[in-house]
């Protein structure tokens, strides 16, 4: 199904997901996966991650090959009324010109998922490199949804972007 934006129930799951598996492609054209906190901006229809420069390999991979996929699965890891297992393929961009401040525009989304984040941020001086962070922005292109998280049923497919 072609759609201009993600279906609402998919957006609900993305907003409530505590963890996602982000897969990027390395220089050997092999997948490399990382569990990460997904931040979904419903207004823009874009999925965000922030990555500390301590764990920056994925950033280098994305700069060379922007194709990524994101998996949201397991009911307990999604804080929302509805749950679906969702795989998103998309194109990613890395924003790393201002590692100290730019990612902080995502703090409102981050705060919703980890309410204690401000406490850690106040102690930024304790782990200074951890708080130097790049933004990974993922524009969804193809979405696969196992409705209600039922992996025994055929998934639904969406092409995003019209």
């Amino acid at each position, binding site marked *: 199904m072609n759609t201009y934006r993600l279906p609402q129930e998919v957006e609900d799951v993305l907003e409530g997901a505590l963890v996602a598996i982000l897969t990027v492609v390395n220089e050997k054209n092999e997948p490399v996966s990382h569990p990460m906190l997904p931040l979904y901006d419903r207004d823009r229809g874009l999925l965000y991650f922030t990555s500390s*420069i301590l764990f920056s390999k994925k950033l280098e991979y994305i700069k060379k090959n922007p194709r990524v*996929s994101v998996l949201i699965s397991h009911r307990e*890891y999604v804080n929302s009324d509805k749950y679906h297992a969702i795989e998103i393929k998309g194109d990613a961009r890395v924003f790393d010109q201002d590692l100290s401040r730019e990612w902080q525009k995502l703090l409102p989304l981050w705060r919703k*998922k980890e309410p204690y984040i401000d406490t850690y941020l106040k102690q930024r*001086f*304790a782990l200074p*490199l951890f*708080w130097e962070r790049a933004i990974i922005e993922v524009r969804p292109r193809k979405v696969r949804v196992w409705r209600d998280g039922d*992996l025994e049923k055929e*998934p639904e497919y969406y092409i995003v972007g019209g």
Partner: protein
Amino acid sequence: MVGAEDLTMFEQVAIAFIDEDGYPSTIPLLTTRLNGDVKLRLPKGIADNWIERKKVNLILNHITPIPTGGYTDRRYAVFRGLSRVMDGIVRVEVERAYTWDERVTPFPQYVEVSTARARRYLEGIGKRLGETFKPRIGLFWSFFRTVRLPFLIATAVPVAIGTGAAFYRGFFDPLLLLLTLVGLSCIHLALNVANDYFDTILGADIANKRPTPFSGGSRAIIYGIVNMQEARLIYTSFFLTGAAVGAYLAVTRGLLEISVLTCMGLFLSYFYTAPPLKLAYRGFGEIAVFLGFGPVIVLGTYFVQTQRIGLDAIISSIPIGLLIMLILYVNEIPDTPYDREAGKMTLVTRFTKKQALGFLAGSLIATYLTILLIPLLNLGPTTILIALASAPLAYRVYRGVEHNFGDPYRMIGVMSLNVKNAAITGSLLAAGYIIGAAL
């Protein structure tokens, strides 16, 4: 091979591969038990041949959601290799595997081992954008971290004791006290930065992968908050300022005595880690700290006020010298494996656990015995015996070290308690002199 027990530790199981469209694909897997084995099965809608004989990542992931929001108890395992799929059942011929479990490798340690990568990334961006990038934590926090500001308590308390002992003899000049405190604080801050500078050159701080707020240095150079040139400039400036204040006090209060004590302070502070002496690397760091923060500071402060040196001042410097030495000593315990690796043979690195605990107990007993001796030898008022009130705290320090010996993160609490013990005991000792004078 992923065992059934491994899988029970993870709820989220997925496989990633490069799809026909060139995008990576990350697919959830079903886990089913078959004849006692755990099988990983593809979900509906995913054909065997999409994955068969492809380079894949098998990811096992776990978090424990917190009811009030967020999560904890993170762990994951990634197995990379060639996949074999038959009838929807996935096997991975593992070529490489890596895991992280925050109960095994606490997050601060996990972060620490990646420091070099982060520095490289910052340098890369700096080259791309044509400017120097540093972690931005603000000027105050950069200074706070670089000079290890809270440790100034180790200067303030001996100064208070020297002042208290002088006050007991009827001498007190607040301006001289302020000058003494400023001069000694400058030398102490210089010592802290010089210590980081030379520990970085000599490899001890780089080797340390489990630093804490009390051990492993300030990390300011390691994290790139300051570079080596800046660190050298900072410690040189502080040493020069401290020496200038010392020179002024020498000229105005006693040339020989203040000059000797200032030179001793500067010598011990600089050569604590600086080559060729590297006192801390040769097992003399503890005695240097005892002398520097005990007799040198207490006698110096006392002399500036009274213009004389007496046995009463010398004996009053011993307990605080021992307690500040024990701050260093206890903080060195978590650094032991890394210090050994870097050839920094501190006293603790030369001891067995039993010997290390014996030295700690002996030093604590000597501290309180000396306090007891001061009024007994008529070298101070009986009111200084209030300093003995901290003995239960000292006992808790000993038990805490004994219980958590060597585990850096579990030792944070006891290292903090040890600093408190030195501060409280020293403050009570100073207060004892002042109360004794008032009575």
